[in-house]
């Protein structure tokens, strides 16, 4: 069911400006929050059962409650606006169309947790979005929603917009923290978790843009109203990014638990050019692929997708039609991961590059069945062995593609060519720089 909570101002003229946001009821939730005890705000967020929209789906309230209440160090919020997962572009829409909703969410979060400084880590490639965010932050400062004494009771809050420099791994929370500190963006080992030792070794909350943007509505309408939307364990609405071979790619806000078929056919207009569906990557490029059959029967919530052997991730569908070569798709994906691996842990550093090189070999028509076994073996072994989950992110597509579309890989190997496309693009797939 379509329900506009986060996207309610999308499409409104000048929706990214403060006057328009306020005219539509903006910053009322912030005032409401200031009238509440911070602990009560936290309890409200907990009761809403909202889960992190960045990909891991960790309950937001629980995450906040890990931050120590009484500690003589400053506490920080890092807003993860480094949306880099291929196929995902929901945060971009929020930053572009309604940055104030997120800023209001940030203020609510900081009030609840007792934070006085928030960093918004925004993806370096988001030029337009960053400009709008910058001006929104400026507007909020001018209006007195940020800065000194914003609730006329001595609550201070500063927001620093920090631009990334083009690294996927800086979307990983500890990689992001390193990058905010001005270091090379590479994940830290956990434990210690950021809630205890995060930015500048201080307790830190890391939240996704979309999660924070949902807070004003939750505060305004109450946790129960939010928890009533969606399914039992996956509450609320979600911004679904849908792209690939689809008639109307874009961002759609639908309740959690909506069938994938509804999103694809009723909202996004079905597979492009009337072709048949071959596969769907349901939650951003790192989630295991679903066959058309699986895709048509699955609902979009954390539990259903997990049951189907995949993940909700960032809620980014990549639609793949019947005339697409799966070897080619996987090669593109693995090139991405080989390119983006930070290079700390050997299994990921070498494993992703090895998988990519093996796939190029198969894609060139020079592969052997042994190569396919090797590929599967590497994918089965690198996951879960590294500091962060990038190795898992690289391994899951490889495992699922080979498992579900093995015949296409074998055909490539046996015939030496591709039935869907000639090999003229292969050279562009090779060479990771």
């Amino acid at each position: 069911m379509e329900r506009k909570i986060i996207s309610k101002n999308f499409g409104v003229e000048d929706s990214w400006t403060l006057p328009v946001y306020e005219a539509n009821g903006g910053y009322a939730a912030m005032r409401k929050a200031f009238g509440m005890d911070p602990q009560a705000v936290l309890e409200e967020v907990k009761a809403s059962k909202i889960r992190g929209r960045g990909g891991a789906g960790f309950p937001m309230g629980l995450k906040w409650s890990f931050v120590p209440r009484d500690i003589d160090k400053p506490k920080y919020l890092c807003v993860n606006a480094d949306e880099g997962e291929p196929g995902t572009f929901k945060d971009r829409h929020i930053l572009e169309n309604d940055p104030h909703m997120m800023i209001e969410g940030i203020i609510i979060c900081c009030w609840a947790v007792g934070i006085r400084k928030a960093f918004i880590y925004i993806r370096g490639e988001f030029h337009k979005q960053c400009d709008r965010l910058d001006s929104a932050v400026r507007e909020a400062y001018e209006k007195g929603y940020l800065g000194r004494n914003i609730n006329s009771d001595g609550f201070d809050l500063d927001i620093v917009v920090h631009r990334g420099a083009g690294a996927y791994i800086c979307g990983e929370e500890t990689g992001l923290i390193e990058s905010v500190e001005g270091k090379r963006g590479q994940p830290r080992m956990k434990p210690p978790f950021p809630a205890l030792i995060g930015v500048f070794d201080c307790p830190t909350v890391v939240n996704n843009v979309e999660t924070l943007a949902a807070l004003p509505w939750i505060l305004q309408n109450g946790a129960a109203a939010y928890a009533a939307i969606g399914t039992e364990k996956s509450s609320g609405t979600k911004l679904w990014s849908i792209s690939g071979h689809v008639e109307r790619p874009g961002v759609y806000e639908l309740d959690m638990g909506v069938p994938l078929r509804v999103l694809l056919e009723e909202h996004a207009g079905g597979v492009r050019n009337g072709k048949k569906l071959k596969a769907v990557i349901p939650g951003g490029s790192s989630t295991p692929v679903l066959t058309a059959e699986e895709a048509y029967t699955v609902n979009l919530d954390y539990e259903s997708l997990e049951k189907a052997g995949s993940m909700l991730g960032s809620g980014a569908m990549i639609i793949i039609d019947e005339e697409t070569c799966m070897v080619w798709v996987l090669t593109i994906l693995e090139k991405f991961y080989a390119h983006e691996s930070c290079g700390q842990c050997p299994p990921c550093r070498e494993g992703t590059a090895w998988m990519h090189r093996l796939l190029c070999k198969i894609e060139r028509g020079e592969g052997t069945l042994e190569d396919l076994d090797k590929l599967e073996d590497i994918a089965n072994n690198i996951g879960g062995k590294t500091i962060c989950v990038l190795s898992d992110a690289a391994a899951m597509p490889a495992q699922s593609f080979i498992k579900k579309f093995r015949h296409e890989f074998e055909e490539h190997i046996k015939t030496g060519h591709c039935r869907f496309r000639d090999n003229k693009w292969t050279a562009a797939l090779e060479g990771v720089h």
Partner: protein
Amino acid sequence: MGSVTIEIDGRQVTVEEGLNVIQAAQFLDIQIPHFCYHEGLGVDGNCRMCLVEVEGMPKLQPACNLFVKEGLKVRTRTPQVMEHRRLVLECLFLNHPIDCSICDQSGECYLQDYYLDHGNYRSRYDLPKRLKRKRVDAGPHVILDAERCVLCARCVRFCDNITKTGELRIVNRGDRSEITLFPGKKLDNPYSLNTVQICPVGALTSKDFRFSWRVWFLKSAHSICTGCSRGCNIIIDHADNHAYRYQARCNPQVNGYWLCDDGRLSYKMINDHRLHVLTEPSGNSRDTFPRFEEALSGIGRQIEGASSVTALMSPDLSNEDLYAASRFAKEIAGSQRMAAGSLKPDGVEDELLRKADAHPNTSGCKTLNLWGDLKPAIDAGGDLLLVFGSDLLQYDNALLKKIRSSFKSIIIFASHEMKGFETGAWLIPIACHAEMDGSFTNFEGRVQKFDAAIRRRGDTLPLWRILGKIGRAMQREWGWSDLAGLRRDLTDEFPQWKEALIEATPSNKTGVPLKMTGTKEAGEE
């Protein structure tokens, strides 16, 4: 700090809180392989080699970041762990040049060792390797080979956290990652060679040691660096009666895990410019001189005939040599003036290790009540000058002239060539610290023993032995038949050294790793 009992591979061990599983496992003689973890640098967790199975945790856990707590149960050699180690090694070898036959690290390389323990597979990699920079001139002492590097970042962390000079970084991502220097910078800090020692593979090699000797032919002796008064614990690696390098030996109380470059390269003085033969004042050496013993008798007669004797001692001598020299000067030579001191200019001092006092045993001289000003003793002049130690008179030409004119005869006991005294003095060769057992007292009064590394050459003997010989040549009942006897007399007079010299563990046990304490308990296998 309390202690906790944990179980590793079915065996129980009680260790101090705060240790990680790699450290705790050492008490059970269980080695958990690792590249990036180093006790002196702390946990980084990037190499993934130390992953172990932990009861109650579904995923393998890095042993370096797993700190002991009561009831922790770890298994280090399950099929899952062994398979994982094989995988990490396979990944590390993908783009490794496997040039062991020309690599200086061969024989002390973690990759080699672990491959034999956990790898032993045939390579499945048949694609072109990624090429990286080789033979990079990283600094005055260090060469970098980026292809051999496993990117454990030990060197980076050393320069960041220990020397705080931060010359090194890893650049690029994924398998393009490599160690590099900041543009326009060189790995040029006074401790740069530590990066070579802590590099687990052959990526960083020492310009000095490169291609000079195969490490498996080297023998090691535990010793003390003589570069300054810090008294860093070292290992002398030697072969064929030649010292090839110093390596830092861990002693948390003195030098931690490190050694400065000047100290590390000071091994050269063991080999170079040594005084090997006894030389008489005419300049005749052993070649024309019939017998060593006869020369000693000559020296004895010279001492007996002297009416006034001045004795100068160097703070480069060991405690034992200093004691023997002072007793000799007093009891045999009847010396009127005696002083230990230094004319050497001060060196550089920093907060990490280096001390301005460039002698290893100034404190020893002071404890033995020998420390004094050399100049008045020299100015006073006299009949005979006894010089113990080779570095005393090397820094001042005017002084040198003065000595020659104010003393009728000069006897010098030296381990190294004496410039300006090629003729006109008795030169008696003595062993340096690498050639004998002994002890130094460092700046904070810590007495540290060292072992003989290499054989003595030519006529050289430890000073205390040659003094005994002279005493006997003078028909006096004087001297010691062994070092233990000398140490007994020494500690009778200076009981504060009793523990360090007599009761303490032999020197090869002083550098115990870290602050570890633990007790083994019998457990089922």
